[in-house]
């Protein structure tokens, strides 16, 4: 009563395909790297607000201080990461994945 594994496609061959291995390597490093950077950058905000208040209070432009600029930079970083990832995925990962998927379809998968 388990979900029937789809035997029409030779999944081991897909995984063993050097193109899949290349995609897997590129994606893994890229995604987890970006993820670690984003989470670390996010937690700098509460940590800074709690432990580096003197820095956050420094006024830069009129009443605008480092803390406010840092909070606004979180938005820029979130959007930047999103755009950076989608560009890379649209240009590179999608093409690599489509090549493999098209081959599987052609082989009567």
């Amino acid at each position, binding site marked *: 009563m388990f979900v029937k594994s789809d035997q029409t496609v030779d999944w081991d061959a897909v995984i063993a395909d050097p193109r899949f291995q290349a995609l897997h390597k590129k994606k893994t490093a890229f995604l987890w790297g970006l993820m670690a950077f984003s989470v670390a950058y996010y937690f700098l905000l*509460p940590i800074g607000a709690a432990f580096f208040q003197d820095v956050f209070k420094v006024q830069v432009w009129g009443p605008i201080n480092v803390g406010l600029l840092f909070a606004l930079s979180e938005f820029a970083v979130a959007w930047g990461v999103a755009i950076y990832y989608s560009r890379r995925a649209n240009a590179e990962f999608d093409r690599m994945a489509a090549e493999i998927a098209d081959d599987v379809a052609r082989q009567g998968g």
Partner: protein
Amino acid sequence: MRQIQSKRVALLGLAGAIGLAAGPAFAQGAVSAEYQWLTFTVFAAIICLTMYVTFVAAKRVKSASDFYTAGGGISGLQNGWAIAGDYLSAASFLGIAGLISQYGYDGFMYSVGWLMAYITVLLLIAEPCRNIGKYTLADILAYRNDPRKTRIVGALSVITVSTFYLTAQMVGGGVLVKTLVGIDYEVSVIAVGVLMLGYVLFGGMVATTWVQIIKAILLVTASVVLVMLVWTPYGFSLPAFLTDVVGDSKVQARVAALLGDASTNMTAAELGQRFLEPGLYFKAPIDQISLGLALVFGTAGLPHILMRFFTVPTAQQARKSVVWAMAIIGGFYVLTLFLGFGAARFVGPAEIAAVDAGGNMAAPLLAQHLGGGADSFLGNFMLAFVSAVAFATIVAVVAGLVLAASSALAHDLYVGVFRAGETVTPQEQVKAARVATVIVGAMSIMIGIAAKGQNVAVLVGLAFAVAASANFPCVLLTLYWKRCNTAGIMAGMLIGTLSAVGLTLVSPNLTYPIAATEAAQKVLAGEPAKRAAIALASASSDPAVVAKAGKDAAALDKVIDKARADIEKHAGQRTSFMGLEKPLIALKNPGIISIPLGFLSVLLFSLLFRDRRAEAMWNEVYARQNTGILVSKSSSH
């Protein structure tokens, strides 16, 4: 044809019933009695529009796929708006603007985590889920594990998270509508429930999606108009605007009140500037980091958000929808910066808190002020509009939650477990989905009424904590770790959920009668000194000081009444609901403990109970989630 007609009649009846229910049951709210018709007109217009969409959508709902996921025919852009509509609850619309108006910088900092959460969704969750999932979160868990066991724990967790979130929306919505328009709490809970049922029951995911899109567009439009009105006088200069905010005496008085004795040696300029510095709201860094963890990882485990990725045809469209959602949600939070500081500058923190202690009325009162004030038609029109948008917001979020909970009930438990191995026809599946919707909808109304007075922030915190500690580790590890299996999923779901709920039950969030009584007694002990100060001010020759003394006296009366009521309420009690005299842990949000526990449980139990089949199917899962093989490519371009 007959069926469609009966649906039309049912929809009209629904709208009528709400009109009747709302008619006699309103008292005084922020919208004055003579302008209440305005709110109802604006809201009726929104209902008519969304009902029309539901009516059109109802004809297209033929299969379970139509009902749960709109047949996968939603575009990335549409889904981006719908995610924003699903996510921007009244709590973030009114709550964050309110927090900024009351606590300045910390309120804005609070909003950042809600956006950052989507990085996790974008990078790790959205695309793999689209490639291997079907309708629900449990579909992903069941793919290479024992479907019966994983569907049961998955569905239970989905129902738990949705119920906490749903209750928060119902309770928060009921209170807000009462404060805004004066409709009785129970009436507004029933109205939200019945309306939402109308959308979901007849129009399924198609109608729910459009209700969410319409609501998100209304919300963003209203905010942009308000921000334009706030910012234009300053020539769109941020320093000029903030200089005016920190120079305002109402803002400075608020900071002085928050800081208490610490403010005695500060100048007015220092007090104003302090509003833009951290620390007025968040006192314990560990609490804030714990909440941040729950937000950043919990969003990726929220069932009603995950479900949205099954409505688009391909992984590319899923990716596009998260990017759009991030643009809309992030843009909206930047706007709340102006709404919150604008409300503090133009309405005043104390005036906002006088209407609602949590500050939730900041944006509506700002709208009224910008339109020309409480006596003007335009001012009341804008207040009415913002109130109607807030109501639409609650309905849209509740609709998404009910759809997620009923899909777990109908698709996972009924079709996947109870009738496992049988052939369930498409007609039966849709019928099961509709029956489940009615059950969940009716329960949500009952829970909403029963939970009156519950702490909304605690309920939302719980929903995110369970999602981050149970759903997120299970989904993430089954997608990315070969050895993950049924035992790991079951342990992760159960231990993650139980630890998040258990730690909250022994946290400082609950009411502890001994501490509450002591705090109330302290308030009473301080009364004579405050009365003396007010008496002194009343004798002043400055009419402004006398007027302020009058306001202070009224505010003090309220505080004293509440303190007396608290003491009476807790008389004879010594322990909290859990039988504790004081909290066992100091943490307000359990995330920092329960999230690692959830992950450890999946890891440990997967390793202890090895499952060769789950490992053998890893290649299939991993190849499919990365390539999209077997996903229909019909509408990928």
